[in-house]
Structures are given as C-alpha cells and as structure tokens.
C-alpha cells in the first residue's frame, strides 16, 4: 500500500478504537465468538462428567503418550508460526513460506496422529452407536464396557476432540492459502482424494475427508472474489487463529485426556 494512500485514510477517519487494522480486530472478534463455541462444548462435557456417577478413567499410557506427542506437535507449530510472522515482518518471503509450511506440517502431523488415535480407540470399542463396526476386530476391552455403561464418555470425547480436529484442519487449509495462494487448491484436492481413498469405508475419516473438498471449494470462491496479494498482516492474523486453536488444545488435553488417565 502506498504511503500517500495511508496518509489520506489516516486523515479522514477517526483513529481506530484499538489502534490496529480491521482484519486483526475481525479475527479477535471471531476468536471471541469461537471461544464461546468451545466454551459451550466444554460446559457440556463438564455437565456430563459431573452429573454422571462413576465417570471412567480408561486412557492407558499408550493413549497418553500419543496425546503428549500430539501436544508437542501443536506447541512446536506455534513456535514455527511465530517465526513465520517474524519472517513476514522482515519482508523475508522465502522464510515466511518455509515457516508456514513447517507449521502446516506440524498441524498435519497432529491430525494424522489424532486420526490414528481415534481409529485405535474405535477398534478397541470406544465408539458411538452410529459409527460402523470395525470388521475383524473382536473388541473386548475396557472401552467396550465404557461405551455401554457411560455413553457420555465417548460422546464428549468425540464431540470435543472432533470439533478441535476440524479447527486444526481448517487452520492448515487457511495457512496453505496464505502461504501458496492459488497453488494450494490443487494440493488440497489431491489431499482430499488421498484421504478419501486411503481410509476404509467404516472409518469416520472416510466421510470426514470431504471437509477438505468443501474447504477447497470455499477457498476457490474466496480467492476468486478477492484475488489480492497477501501481506504480512495476513500472516499475523492467520497466526492469531493458529495460536487460538493451540490454546484450546491446552484445555482439552488436560480435561479430556489427563483427567481420564488410568493412573487416576
């Protein structure tokens, strides 16, 4: 943006109440609203947990270790995100793209690990009534019992972590568009095909993969409507979103995993 244009705008408007640009305020407002959305889910979880007698604590060390690695992935991604923002501020286009891709990679790692975790738990019997049965697995573990006696456990687990996983997925798509713009759309379509074809029909991710297709369509529409160049402010705003998703996990991890670990 030319300096003279900026100067003009400065002189005809009242200063912004928060002294920053609109996109950033918009993102903060969205995060405020989204924290209410997650707040309602966490409230539902707490409500179920408190009102249910004998809430189970079935997560064995394997799950906890896996979730800890996932947490490490997310925390690392926040670091790479900060580095991407710093690179963008210094006008380092290459570094910005590289760090954004690193962030996306960490996010994707989180999703893949989480997906594996879901699949394992479903195979072991922690499932929802409408999830299709996993063929060839004779589930007779503690989780089968949990699903029968305290259905709230599986419901809140899949509801909360599923909503969070959706946010991480959308975050990866968002960062992809900021980093690669139009070039990201074909990559997204390939990812969708791979995710769709590689998951068996009984897996919830078989249908969940269509989120990527919908994301690709919505991104195409937005890029068509607003074919602009992205600057450092876009990276910063995307970073806000990414850190928020990370922050939400810092609530979900202790509340859902650690408080239900077997050692308790």
């Amino acid at each position: 943006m030319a300096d003279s244009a900026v100067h003009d705008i400065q002189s005809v408007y009242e200063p912004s109440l928060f002294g920053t640009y609109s996109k950033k305020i918009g993102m903060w407002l969205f995060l405020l609203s989204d924290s209410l959305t997650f707040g309602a889910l966490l409230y539902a979880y707490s409500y179920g947990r408190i009102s249910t007698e004998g809430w189970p604590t079935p997560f064995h060390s394997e799950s906890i270790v896996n979730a800890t690695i996932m947490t490490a992935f997310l925390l690392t991604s926040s670091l790479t995100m900060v580095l991407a923002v710093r690179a963008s501020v210094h006008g380092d286009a290459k570094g910005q793209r590289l760090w954004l891709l690193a962030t996306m990679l960490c996010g994707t790692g989180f999703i893949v690990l989480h997906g594996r975790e879901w699949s394992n738990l479903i195979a072991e019997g922690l499932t929802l009534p409408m999830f299709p049965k996993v063929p060839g697995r004779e589930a007779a573990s503690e989780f089968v019992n949990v699903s029968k006696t305290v259905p709230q456990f599986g419901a809140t687990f899949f509801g909360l972590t599923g909503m969070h996983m959706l946010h991480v997925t959308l975050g990866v798509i968002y960062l992809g568009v900021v980093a690669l713009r139009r070039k990201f759309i074909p990559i997204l379509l390939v990812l969708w095909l791979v995710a769709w074809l590689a998951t068996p029909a009984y897996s919830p991710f078989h249908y969940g993969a269509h989120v990527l297709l919908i994301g690709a369509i919505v991104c195409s529409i937005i890029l068509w409507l607003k074919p602009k160049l992205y600057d450092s402010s876009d990276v910063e705003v995307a970073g806000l979103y990414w850190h928020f998703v990370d922050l939400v996990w810092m609530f979900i991890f202790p509340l859902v995993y650690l408080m239900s670990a077997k050692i308790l």
Partner: protein
Amino acid sequence: MATHEFAAQESHAHAAPQGFVRKWVFSLDHKVIGLQYYFLALAAVFVGMFLSLLMRIHLIWPTLPLPLLGDIKPETYLTLVTMHGTIMVFFVLTTAPQGGFGNYFLPIQIGAPDMAFPVLNMLSFWTTLLGFIVMIAAFFVAGGAPLHGWTGYAPLSAMQSTGPGEGLGADLWIISIAIFCIGALMGALNFITTTLDMRAKGMTMMRLPLTVWAWFVTAILGLLAFGVLLSAGILLLMDRNLGTSFFVPLVTINGQLTGHKGGSPLLWQHLFWFFGHPEVYIAILPAMGMCSQLLSVFSRKPIFGYKAMVYAILGIGFLGFMVWGHHMFMSGMSPYTAFAFSIMTMGIGVPSAIKTFNWLGTLMRGRIRFTSPMLFAIGFVSLFVSGGISGPFLAQPVLDIQLHDTYFVPAHFHLIMGVASIFGIFAATYYWFPKMFGRMMNESMARWHFWFSFIGTYAIFMPMHYLGMAGMPRRYSQLTEVTYLHGLIPLQKFITYAAFVTIAGQLIFLVNLFWSMFKGKQASDNPWEATTLEWTTATPPPHDNFGGHTPVVHNGPYEYNVPGAPRDYVMQSDPEIGPAH
C-alpha cells in the same frame, strides 16, 4: 512492521460494479446487501404470518380442513407453532432490523464508504439465504416440518422417532439454524469492526446516532450468543444422527427403550437459553435505536439523556446474558438460583425504564410532527410499555409457575419482542424509504396501515393475557372440547377475527411499499429535516455513499431547535455550533 502498523485502516473502497449480476445479485455493496436482507425478511414475514393465520383459524374451527394442509392433526398444529416461531425469530426479527437496516445505514451514518469486510458481508447474506431455503425445505420432506417448538426442547427434538416431523424435517431445521448462526456471526463481527474502525473524522463514539449504538451492541450480543447456539446445534445433531446422548436420558417411546441414556434435557435448556435470552435483545435493541432516532427527529428536540440512553443499551446488553435461567423456573432449579435469576431479570427493568422515560422526556413539549414513521415510533413505545409491564410478573418464580405455558407468555413476548420490534421495522421503513428508493411512501395508506396494526395488535394480544390467567395452556391444537375452557371460546373467536383484520391491514403496507417504489412522490435529499449523515448525501446514495469524499463530523446526532442556528436543526457535518450545547 512500521508500514502495516500505520496502515491501520486500509482502504476498504472497491470499484463500482458493472453488470446486473455483480451489482444486484452477488453484490459487495452494503446498501444492496441491506436490501437483499430486507426483502428476505419480507418474504419470511409473510410465510410466518400465513402460518399464524392457519393456527388462528384452526383454534376456533378445529374441524375445518385448511388450504394446502387439509385436516389439521395435533402434530400438524405443532408444526405450525414451530415454524411460525422459528421463521419469525430468526429470519424476520433478527434479519430485518440488523441485517437489513443495519447493513444499509450503519456505514452511511458513521461516514464510511462500505463495511469493513465487504466480501464477508456478501457471504453472510448468502449464508442466511441458504439457511432460509433449508428451513423452508423442511416443509416438503417426508414427515414434514418438525414439531418441537422454536426452542427445540430435548428429548423431543433429540431423537428421530419422537413424532412425524422429527425425522429429516428436524435435521433440516437444526442444519438451517446452524447455517444461520454462521451467517449471523460473520455479520456481527463485520458490524463491530466497522463501528470501531471506520468512523469519519469527528464521529467520536459519543457522537454516534443511537441507531448505530443499538446495532453495535446488538452485534456484540450476536457474536457471543450465536456461537453457543452453534455448539448446541452440533450436539443435537450428534444426538439425532450419531446416537450420542447429550440431551437424552433413559427414556422409552411406546414402551420401547430408545438406546439413549445418561444425558440431560436441562443441558439443552441451559445452552439454548444462554443464546435465547440475548436473542430477545438482538430482536428488540435495533428497534429501540430506531425509535430513539425517530422520536428526536419528529419532536424537533435533542434526544432526552443521550448518555443515559447509551449506558442503558449497554446495560441491557450486559444483563441480557445473566438471566437465561428465568426461562427455566419450571425445571426444578434450586429456589436460590431462581431467586438470583429473578433479581437479575427485574434489574433489566431499570435500564428499560430509563429508556422509556427518556423517550417520554423527548416527546414532552416537543413540536411533534405526526408523520407515519413517528406514529409507528410512538406505537413502539406503547407496545414496549404494555409488553414490558407483564415482564416482572413472569420474572417472579412464584407467579411464573402459575403463568408458565399459558397464553400469558405468548401475550407478553409477542407484544414486547415480536410486534414492538416489527413496529420498529415499520417505522424504519417509512423513515428511510425515501433515502433507499428516492421516493416517498404514500402517507394516507401509511396511516391506515398504522391504525389497523396498532389497534389490531392490542385486540389480538391483550385478551391473550386473560386467556392465560384463566388457565388456557399454549401450544395445544384443540381446546374447544375442554369443559373448563368453554367460557373462553368467545374470546378466542374475537382474537381470530382481530387477526383477520390486522393481517388484511398488512396488505396495505405491501401495496404501499411496491407502489411507492415506482409511483411515489420524488423525495428530496433530506425530506424529514434530520441531522444524521445519511441525509447529507444524494438520494439514493452513490456506490461509495458520499460521492468520493468522506464527511467530517462537527456535531452530535440530535441538534434540533438549536438557539441561534439559522434553521431549527444542525446537521452532523455542519460547522460546529460551539461547546455550550
């Protein structure tokens, strides 16, 4: 770093669109989007009104087959109740005053060329429209529309097999509301950012017209409330389609276990009303803002107590989030909790009374011009008081237990939130029509419309208080066979006849609206001699609102009857009139 920090307000301007589709269909212009919202709400209000007409006919002639629907079974009646409520609350009361007028006039009144995020603005309209289409689709699927009421209480709403409309119809209902939430969230954050960031030079927060304050606070409420409803809707969809039991306890249907257990219907009520009560203020606050504006313009006096009005709006918005429990007095909540909710609820009476007295103070000793917008604004105050009086009754758990689920409750909320808000929309339509379409609306048709609506509204809803106190329960399809309610049938008949007349009166409005659009008298740029910025620009406003320049504001929004001024009003962009005022 420095470059973009100083580019605090990037240029939001975009080139004027060429071609019909970009100009009128996929438009980024807030004015066109405002009109799109307005006409969406207009279509919705007639659907909703038609449904209420069918209900009123069925209530007094229960065996009469109805057009399109044939014989009304009890579940069909519940479908009418549900869809009337849902369409009216979401697609009329939330859509028209905020999405319609807010979109059109918020940027102009603060001196901005457009909303902060025009693309987001367009997306929010198309999302809302999609929600409406999905909602209407629920009528046409197997089993028809849902019957769980606009509040969607679980477990009725949380299972597929609880009734004829609870299959695909109820799924579409929930999906439609989730889509609506997303659209409302996009709109809300756009409104807030625009108000914070794009005020013209001199337009300080305390010089904002009260309409802008109302839209701004409404947007904050929407931002915080719709996110919660979205969550609740997702959980409800999971209950219905994935077999979870968030809201369903161990229940049987026709003696069969459902397979659900362990959930709590109260959880739904908490989540729903945490959204639902602020939603009431989302519907009424913009009407309050418009009313404040019009009373000042047509009394030719500054609004009485501008600052008190602003703080009252903020106070109502804040308290609105503290009182959702008063919808749940019957749920077996602890009397102490009920007491706390009750006190909070009555506390809302304080800012509401401040507003009412300020409106009366504005009217007092004014040189009142009884134009049609002014009539509707005064009608709004009347309805707001009449409907508000019954609020403290319902806010007390002891009385509420008696009055709950009787006609007293629909009487209360229709007066204060339904029709009062509609009167705000009417007032705003008559007031801003000249700016939007460049022509005046027909004044004598407008007056006929006012008297039909005003008297009709009271004739419909005042008797409902008595029905409620006499014990007539709401939502039942056929009460003519119940002996102890026999004495009330004449009153029910009276209400239905009054509804016929009132609805006929609304056709006058429809004719006036479209007739005036093409045949009305040409309007000048400032036909009402008002002071706010929309009246400084051309009629209708150009694409960037002010034709290439940005206005500079020197005065407050309500400078009428200023001593020493050449006219009896000083516009916001006129030279400053001095600090004495």
